[in-house]
């Protein structure tokens, strides 16, 4: 038996539902139905099933009905028609009480903007699912602490969500979802709001976690790279309809129609590597907090000859060199402001590696990858060379 089975699921928003539903049955498209009835078809006659332990990715452009579909699985959105079975039980027919039980015991959800409660600490957020089930304070704290421990977040348990970075907040979101040990995780664009580097880390963590936990995951994304990276199977949606369902390999080699082909082309272009794909995490100092001593320490430790300087919002201020730093330390200066150099070459995250090569060749420093003034990562020469080398291997 499949873990989740969805049969002929339809969601119509707006009035004239019956007329719209009739048109859905006549295989009319979302645009036709909107024109004739004024109703928006969120999900148009979708069927699929998900196996236990699978990572099932639902992918599509914005507005294609992904969020609506995933919210019908736990009935945050009521289906207009069709059935959903979880472990053979018909979710769509359940009364409120049974539905609550399924939500409490079988399904957890992770949200795009993390969905953390701002008035609760990290621990209290993580406890939430257990608290509403009536666990005693001790029990639920213990379980929540284990979940936070596993996520490496226990040190932050008494802080509030807004004190944490986006990546950390989403780790909390995930820990909270896992705290009541659900069988199924629903993740609606869970990583879409994160920076590229952090996003990759989170994808890796999720895959690692999945190896030991063996949950069933329904993962929504609009990014085919992400889908290919983590999905066992991928369902592609367009205008509420499911246009192709298959493994990443199948979709890449055999796109079902033009729409899917367009997506796949995007991947091809992404294969020509961009700055954001190869950049690394920068070692940096903060201009207002760190002085030459800190800088020297860090540079020694990491074996660097220059290091970037940021402000506390990660805006790039410039860089310092090892020679200047040694002098500043000797002169007992407190700040690096006087020795700050401003001529760090920077590039956009979308810059292709071929273009990067020219920039980095005449530079004695690494290149900063910057968007809106914020430093996302840095690129050193060796990274570009190895990326180009791999790239040519692929083409040969």
């Amino acid at each position, binding site marked *: 038996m499949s873990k989740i089975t969805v049969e002929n699921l339809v969601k119509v928003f707006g009035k004239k539902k019956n007329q719209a539903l009739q048109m859905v049955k006549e295989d009319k498209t979302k645009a036709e139905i909107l024109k004739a009835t004024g109703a928006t078809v969120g999900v148009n006659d979708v069927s699929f099933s998900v196996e236990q332990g699978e990572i099932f990715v639902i992918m599509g452009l914005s507005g294609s009905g992904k969020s609506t579909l995933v*919210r019908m699985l*736990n009935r*945050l959105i009521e289906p207009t028609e069709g059935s959903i079975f979880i472990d053979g039980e018909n979710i769509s027919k359940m009364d409120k009480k049974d*539905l*609550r*039980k*399924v*939500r*409490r*015991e079988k*399904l*957890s*959800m992770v*949200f*795009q*903007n993390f*969905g*953390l*409660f*701002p*008035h609760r600490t990290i621990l209290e957020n993580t406890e*939430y*699912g257990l*608290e*509403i*089930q009536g666990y005693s304070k001790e029990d639920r704290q213990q379980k929540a602490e284990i979940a936070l421990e596993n996520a490496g977040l226990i040190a932050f348990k008494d802080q509030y969500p807004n004190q944490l970075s986006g990546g950390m907040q989403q780790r909390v979101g995930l820990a909270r979802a896992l705290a*009541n040990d659900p069988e199924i995780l*629903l993740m609606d664009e869970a990583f879409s709001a994160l920076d590229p580097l952090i996003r990759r880390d989170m994808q890796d963590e999720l895959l690692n976690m999945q190896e030991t936990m063996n949950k069933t995951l329904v993962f929504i994304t609009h990014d085919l790279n992400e889908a290919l990276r983590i999905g066992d199977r991928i369902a592609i949606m367009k205008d509420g309809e499911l246009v192709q369902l298959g493994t990443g390999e199948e979709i890449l080699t055999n796109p079902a129609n033009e729409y899917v082909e367009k997506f796949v082309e995007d991947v091809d272009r992404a294969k020509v590597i961009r700055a954001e794909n190869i950049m690394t995490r920068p070692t940096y100092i903060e201009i207002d907090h760190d002085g030459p001593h800190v800088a020297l320490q860090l540079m020694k430790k990491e074996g660097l000859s220059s290091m970037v300087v940021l402000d506390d919002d990660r805006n790039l201020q410039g860089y310092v060199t090892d020679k200047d730093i040694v002098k500043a330390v000797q002169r007992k200066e407190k700040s690096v402001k006087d020795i700050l150099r401003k001529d760090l070459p920077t590039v956009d995250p979308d810059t292709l590696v071929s273009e990067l090569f020219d920039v980095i060749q005449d530079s004695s420093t690494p290149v900063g990858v910057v968007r809106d003034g914020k430093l996302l990562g840095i690129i050193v020469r060796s990274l570009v060379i190895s990326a180009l080398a791999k790239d040519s291997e692929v083409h040969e």
Partner: protein
Amino acid sequence: MEESILDFIPEIPVSDAVESFMDWLTGTFAFLFDSIQSFGKFVMEGMTDLLILIPPVLFILIIAAAAFFASGKKFGLAAFAIVGLWFVQNQGLWEDLMNTITLVIISSLISIVIGVPVGIWMAKSKWANTIITPILDLMQTMPAFVYLIPAVAFFGIGMVPGVFASVIFALPPTVRFTNLGIRQVPEELVEASESFGSTGSQKLFKVELPLAKSTIMAGINQTVMLALSMVVIASMIGAPGLGSEVLSALQRAQVGTGFVSGLSLVILAIVMDRLTQKLTK
């Protein structure tokens, strides 16, 4: 009077109809209004008597301490409260002040006890929202004096009709802000709460109300201020307090007394406003 083209039907007897409806209401429910009247009077007179029993020095110090701690250990408001309340006491208006405070507190409490649940109801039910919104609009656009008429009809004169009129006048902000506060809770947080299997009341008490709290408190602050202004107007129907001093000064054209009582009201208003604002941050 000249014949007008508009006179093709006779005057519709609206005022007569309202009057006979009110007669019916007061007649039929006389026992109810009477018992509310005597119970309310008992409670409020008791409360005022208790307040008067507190020595003014102690009362002023308590308010000053509350102001001091509520404003994060700053002296500004506390100092103002001491000087201001002392002035009221010095002018021999202490008992009036206590009467006014009783009326404001009781009116505000009743408004909150009614207003918050109604606001929640409006946020949850589309029907409630469409029906109650125009009623709130009406309540807020009616001149305040109008409420004195049914108040007198139901409860005669004194404190109880004063509170009745004040509650009607002061209720809308609490209702509106509660409604708004709950509607403003981000959709994703409501979904998060539901996705874990919360019941309706768990969602309300653990997520929606805590997140709407500061908005609701802003509404309550407005309610307190409106209650104060209405309590003054209610002196026209015999509600005791600083307002009645202003009224009698007005009737006798005593500029001096009027000024002093008016100033006392302003002092009370400022202290109450700042204090509720700070307590609810």
